[in-house]
């Protein structure tokens, strides 16, 4: 049986002034598992990480890191947990090689091993060209990769990464995901915060969606996708979404449409697909829409349905009545 290295149960964190940053959060991360934490800004993700790392104390609820309580033994837990913070790592005057090696040493490695591990990470993340350039002259992406290297140098049992792929170029992003997987393969439990839904869908084992301090949904990408209505989505783009006529009666919609400024997205089941395509072609031929597309439902659709109800990042929320989050 695989052990849960990170167990969070009914975690509540209230700040002065009454803000409930975490409101009854429960989640587990097993050894060898990568769990993605999705949610809007202010959903309570970073607060959660800080409590696990022993930097903040929960108002109520329990946290166990490999059986150890960060409230009672913060110093011990800090040695078991590696955190890559959302803010830039302090790299002014320091090169990626120096930073990764020093962190490996601070996390308990000997000189020889820390050097070997640093070379390994620099090679794996393709950082060789900047390995000896000081921080102030590094691009944002290289700084992010270095910060990841600092956390991954000697990762302990639980690794928490706060938006690790921000600013990183597409090629190194893949290398970074490989290294995140490698941490899990070493037996670490990896919890990572991301806003990149598509990446999370491809690269993590399980996804936890947070909103307003609560867990809104949890499961594999496939499990979460199955929560949404329809298998496809007909997307119509027009100068104004209001100008798009309603779906004809012979095409059954699988759920309420999502309306954006210039875009209408209608959920459909597979049997309605060909009729919907024909309708889309007609509309374009008539000049009513600029573009149309029939796309399979992705995790982003689920995410928007789940989390879109609160502080939607754009105009994707709209007329859909019942929320799957309920």
């Amino acid at each position: 049986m695989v052990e849960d290295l990170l167990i969070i149960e009914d975690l509540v964190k209230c700040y002065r002034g009454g803000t409930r940053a975490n409101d009854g959060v429960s989640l587990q991360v097993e050894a060898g598992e990568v769990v993605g934490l999705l949610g809007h800004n202010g959903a309570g993700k970073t607060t959660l990480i800080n409590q696990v790392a022993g930097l903040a104390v929960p108002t109520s609820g329990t946290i166990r890191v490999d059986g150890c309580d960060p409230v009672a033994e913060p110093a011990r837990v800090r040695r078991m947990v590696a955190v890559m913070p959302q803010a830039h790592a302090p790299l002014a005057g320091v090169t990626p090689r120096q930073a990764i090696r020093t962190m490996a040493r601070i996390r308990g490695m000997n000189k020889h091993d820390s050097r070997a591990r640093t070379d390994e990470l620099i090679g794996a993340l393709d950082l060789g060209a900047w390995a000896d350039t000081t921080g102030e002259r590094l691009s944002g992406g290289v700084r992010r990769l270095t910060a990841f290297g600092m956390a991954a140098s000697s990762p302990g049992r639980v690794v928490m990464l706060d938006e690790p792929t921000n600013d990183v170029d597409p090629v190194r992003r893949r290398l970074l995901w490989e290294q995140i997987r490698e941490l899990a393969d070493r037996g670490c439990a990896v919890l990572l915060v991301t806003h990149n839904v598509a990446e999370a869908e491809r690269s993590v084992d399980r996804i936890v969606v947070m909103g307003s301090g609560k867990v809104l949904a949890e499961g594999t990408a496939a499990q979460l996708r199955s929560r949404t209505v329809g298998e496809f989505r007909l997307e119509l783009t027009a100068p104004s979404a209001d100008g798009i006529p309603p779906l004809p009666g012979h095409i059954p919609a699988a759920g309420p449409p999502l309306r954006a400024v210039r875009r209408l997205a209608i959920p459909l089941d597979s049997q309605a697909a060909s009729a919907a395509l024909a309708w889309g072609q007609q509309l374009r031929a008539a000049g009513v829409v600029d573009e149309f597309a029939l796309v399979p439902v992705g995790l982003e659709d689920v995410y928007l349905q789940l989390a879109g109800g609160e502080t939607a990042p754009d105009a994707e929320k709209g007329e859909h009545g019942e929320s799957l989050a309920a």
Partner: protein
Amino acid sequence: MSHWLRSYGLLLGWTALRSRATLPLNLIIQTFLAVGIIVGFAYLVPEMDDATALYLATGAPVLGLITVGMVIGPQEVASSKQEGIFDFNRSLPVPRSALIASDATVALLTALPGMVAALVVAGLRFDLTLHISPLVLPAVLLTAFTAIGLGYGIGYGLAPAAARMMSQLVVFVALMFSPITFPASRLPDWFESVHRVLPFQYMAEAVRDTLNRPPEGVAALPFAVLAVWSLIGFLITYRMTARRP
């Protein structure tokens, strides 16, 4: 203990690496400050006698230590809080006290060259014969740690914007209104009483009396007061570093 020492050593190397970038500028500013006080303050004094020269010569290095500890210190802490470096450091698997000790060590090493520069400039400017006591070493260390400890206390205890303003106030008070470069007897009575509590006068006294030992010997009071102030500063720092909101 071995974990503490190992952490301290590694953090010292880490902090030193990161301070290299700002070190040259720090040293230049300190040296200019020392020159400024010794040469510039002399213009304010119509007649330079030995007593005045001694106050300026021994006050300049103290002001250098105050600048590094209580002005640059809180400003660096304020920035580290705003840039997330403080939180990053707090997440490291090291004892909090080792973190503070390594920072304080680097600040001390940064402050000492400026202090030496001030003494060299004073030696060149004034024709002074000093009777240096061996107690000068603890006096300088205690003065430096009081400035550093209180500087950190300001930086960690106050919000960044307030800490920056406070550091400005400190330099203003220390430079113009503290009996560091002049005798306390020139101050109005009420202000003299205030300075009996504040650490500035005792910093100046400890350094002055050990650089030029008075006939009656070096007084213990300044050392005791400085030890208390330094302890207060580091305790606030420790509390704020170990604090878990």
